[in-house]
Every structure is written in structure tokens, then in C-alpha cells.
């Protein structure tokens, strides 16, 4: 599997956020998105998740050289945790497990609770959770149903040190089993197979000038792959 992004241009509210960005991620790789505030990390992740239409360019997910529907392969965790305060921690997770089509709801629930240490607060209303607990509950969603492509927007915010380590372990395991992870973050995540993509805000006025917002930080290793797949 591979995620290809070709000449992607993204506008938001009439402003150019990302212009003419191209990159490719092969399976088994965690691509860390870096850049100052406003560089377009969240906008890029949202666009990859299908929230918002690119102004130009395209996003393709290839499986065995054939394009497949991203929505079936995708797990998205944004700034908000998608947690219902009126339901308990366990109820929240059970709903997502069913909604996302988990094969074994009970087993998936146990694994997710165990991994993020949610057991002790399982019956507590989510409204009573601290910010970190809520974030753990949000991230636990990733474990409920297997998805090949993880899109994580600053997942380590408000997590304690131990949980950040857990998260890094999960991303590693996800990549080892052939998944792709895109992680926008400001902290150093100790992820084994990572590449880094530096985004910077396009120079204004950028619209139409075709300014490349990509600085290849991990060498030009991706280029032959791009050339092979896109020609």
C-alpha cells in the first residue's frame, strides 16, 4: 500500500494554506509532519481524511498498484476527541466499536481499554474525564477496528509521558504490520520507522505562483518511488 499526494494545493477561507505539495508514503512508514503554527499540518491531514476538497492536485491510496477508496482504510483522530460527555467511557468506546464495524466488539474493547489504561474509569461519565483521559479515550478508537491508514493530528497533546510512549509503541506496531501513519506533531515522538516532512507557510501572496511548500527533510529517497508510481 502507498499513499501518493501529487501537486496538492489547499485553500481555506480564501487563503492558500498548502501549495503544490507532492510526497509519497510507503507502507510501514510513519510520516511526521512538522512545521510552525499555520503551516498547514491540520489542513493537510483533514484533506487526506476527505474533509474538504483540494483546490488542485490529487490524493491516491494505492493497494497492489490499484487505487482504492481511502474512507474504508482510514482512521482519523483530530484535535477534538469525539467523546460524548453524557455517556460513560465504556459506552463511548462500545459505540465506536460498533459504528466502525469492529469484528469482535468485546475483545476489541478489552484491548483498547487495557492499552490506554481506561479500565479504572470505564463506568465514569466521560464528562468527568480530565483532558488527558479524554484524549486517551479518543486515541483508543484507533484500536477498535483495524485501519491501514492512520491520520493523527497532534495526538500527544495533554498526554502524560507514559501514554506518549504507549502511543509511539502503537504507531511502531501499526507500521510493522504494514500500516501507514501520518502524524502532525510538535513533540519528538520516538517512532522507529519515521520520515519527516517539513511544512512551511507559503509565502504570501502565494496563490497562483506555484511556490512549493515542501522541504524534503529526509533526503530525496522518496523521489524514485514517486517517479515509479506516477511516471
Amino acid at each position, binding site marked *: 500500500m502507498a499513499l501518493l499526494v501529487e501537486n496538492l494545493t489547499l485553500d*481555506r477561507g480564501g487563503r492558500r494554506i498548502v501549495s503544490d505539495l507532492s510526497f509519497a508514503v510507503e507502507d510501514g512508514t510513519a510520516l511526521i509532519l512538522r512545521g510552525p503554527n499555520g503551516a498547514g499540518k491540520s489542513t493537510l491531514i*483533514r484533506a487526506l*481524511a*476527505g*474533509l*474538504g*476538497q483540494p483546490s488542485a492536485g490529487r490524493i491516491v491510496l494505492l493497494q497492489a498498484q490499484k487505487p482504492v*477508496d481511502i*474512507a*474504508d482504510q*482510514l482512521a*482519523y*483522530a*483530530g*484535535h*477534538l*476527541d*469525539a*467523546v*460524548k*460527555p*453524557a*455517556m460513560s467511557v465504556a*459506552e463511548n468506546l462500545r*459505540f465506536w466499536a*460498533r*459504528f*466502525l*464495524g469492529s469484528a469482535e466488539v468485546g475483545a476489541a474493547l478489552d484491548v483498547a481499554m487495557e492499552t490506554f489504561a481506561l479500565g479504572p474509569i470505564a463506568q465514569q461519565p466521560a464528562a468527568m474525564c480530565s483532558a488527558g483521559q479524554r484524549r486517551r479515550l*479518543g486515541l483508543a*478508537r484507533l484500536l477498535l477496528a483495524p485501519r491501514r491508514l492512520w491520520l493523527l493530528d497532534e495526538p500527544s497533546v495533554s498526554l502524560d509521558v507514559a501514554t506518549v510512549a504507549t502511543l509511539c509503541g502503537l504507531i511502531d506496531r501499526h507500521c510493522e504490520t504494514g500500516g501507514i501513519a501520518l502524524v502532525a506533531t510538535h513533540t519528538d515522538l520516538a517512532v522507529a520507522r519515521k520520515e519527516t516532512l517539513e511544512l512551511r507557510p507559503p509565502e504570501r501572496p502565494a496563490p497562483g505562483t506555484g511556490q512549493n511548500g515542501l522541504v524534503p527533510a529526509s533526503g530525496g529517497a522518496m523521489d524514485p518511488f514517486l517517479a515509479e508510481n506516477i511516471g
Partner: protein
Amino acid sequence: MDGSLRSLLGRELILAVRAGGGAGLGLAFFLIAVLLVPLGIGPELALLSRVAPGLLWVAALLAALLSLDRMFQADLEDGTLEVMATAALPLEGLAAIKALAHWLTTGLPLVLAAPVLALTLGLPPAGIAWLVGSLALGTPALSFIGAIGAALTVGVRRGGLILSLLVLPLYVPTLIFGARSVDLAANGRDPQSAALLLAAVTLGTLGIAPLAAAAALRINLR
């Protein structure tokens, strides 16, 4: 996908009956609004029974409007809507389930409470039967048209007012045919034509509203 739809419906119903969910709000409004009318226009039963069909329908319509603005708003605020939009379930299915849940928690209680209120206003028995029938036929349209308005105003701060302005004009056909069928039946005439038109409006709405609401959600999620 079946499992997704069912889990979503279950969650909507649970959230509606929990604190801050708003189930029962529409019903309470309906009861109070109708019971206030005799206090306002006097206890003369002949007059009350004459205005009862229109009155009950207008009250039901406003009651249905009451909890519409939270249909998508709460899910947008806590990020649930984004996650759902990125899942494999089409937004059309999501919108249809949301509207169905709104009807089950708001419209259906109105249908069940209507006969009691109709009695207090002195509506003749034939009219009561058709009141229940026309509300059962017409209130789904209120929820589904409402879903379009709720989806259009989902990102708008204090969008409830704009929502009412958008949705109320669209409720007009349902109101006219619904109230007319009860009126005809109460006066011993055949209400079938009005009831058929009411059913047609509802069926058309059930078909179109999920598509329109999903399109509006897509724009608002950008």
C-alpha cells in the same frame, strides 16, 4: 454498514433521554402550548373545537422545531461529526438516522399525546382519529425537513433562529394538508385527498432530505 446505522440510532436515542438530550422537551412544549389556548380565548367549546385542528398542528410544528438545532451541532462541537464523516458510512445515511431519531424522540410522542389534547379542545371523535393519523403521516416530514435546516446551520453560532426562519416556510405544505385533513374529518367530510397529499409531501421529503442534509454537512465540514 448495517451495524453502523443501528449503533448510531441506539446512541442517538440514549443521548436524547440523558441529561441535556432534549427528548420530552417538544412534548412538554406541545402540552403547555395547547393547554394555554383555552385560557387565552375562553372555554367556549364550540369555538375551541372549530380551531382545534389548526391549533394542534401549529403547536406540533413548533414543538418539533424546538430541539432541531442540536441535531448536528453537538456532534460538530465535540468532533464526532468529523470522525463520522471520515468513516465509510455515507453522510446521507447519517443524516437519515439523525432525522429518524429526532422523529422517534420528538414526533412520535406528539402523535401519542395528541388524542388527549384533542379531547380537551372538544374535537369530535372522527377528527381525533384523523388527527392521530395525519400527525403520524406528517411529523416525519417535520423531522426530515428540519434535518436540512439543521445541517445548513450547523456551524452557525446561535443558529437556532436562522434555522427556524429557514425551516418554517418549508413546513407550510405539511401544515396545510395535515390540518385540512383533520378539519374535513371533524366536519364529517372525506379527508382522503388532503391525507394523500400529506403522505406525498412526507414521502418526497424522506427521499430528498437526507441527500440535501448530507450536501450541506459536506460544505460545513470543509
